[in-house]
């Protein structure tokens, strides 16, 4: 496998996610979007804290370290 192959897979997977999320916004009754799926997690304090900690780690990992 070459770097170009790996990048092509990354692009295809990103496009798949974008298409799925776009379908959720354009066909609300047929596909559930990311926020719709995370709503139950955000409704409970422990899982909400985990999501917030994940967001914090993401920022620290990419921008500070």
């Amino acid at each position, binding site marked *: 496998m070459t770097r170009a192959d790996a990048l092509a897979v990354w692009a295809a997977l990103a496009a798949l996610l974008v298409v799925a999320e776009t379908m959720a916004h354009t066909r609300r009754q047929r596909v559930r979007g990311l926020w719709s799926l995370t709503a139950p997690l955000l409704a409970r304090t422990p899982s909400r804290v985990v*999501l917030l900690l994940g967001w914090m780690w993401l920022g620290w990992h990419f921008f*500070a370290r």
Partner: protein
Amino acid sequence: MRTRSAHLARWAGPGHLVGLVAALAYSWWAAATAPFTIGADVATAIPLVAVTAVAGGQWWSARRHATLPSALRRLDRPERAGAWWPVPSALVALVGWELYNFFSAPRVTHPTISSLYDAASRSHAWKATFFLAWLALGWELVRR
């Protein structure tokens, strides 16, 4: 439909526009900092502290059964009908590909999200865009 119009009207309001411009300016400044420096630590820590403060305030309000500030309340309710599997399937595929690349070598032929970000973040504009996206994600997490 009315909730969607209200949602759009809310986003076009002066408060949100000021917030958006401030977030853009902050992201542009934060993107100018180099990782492993005090500047980058401070630029990243400020949103962390702000989100922690808002989330703590929400938790405290919920404990006291008080209503949330209007700015933190959603106008549109999350949709619940429809197939749940497309978005998680795409995410699982992404995570699987990330793990495959992470445990493979060399990195140049097996790029991970971090290595792709490292390459993209050499551009100030791209790094500012990623930072802005991260801020938006944090805001969405505390807004919902």
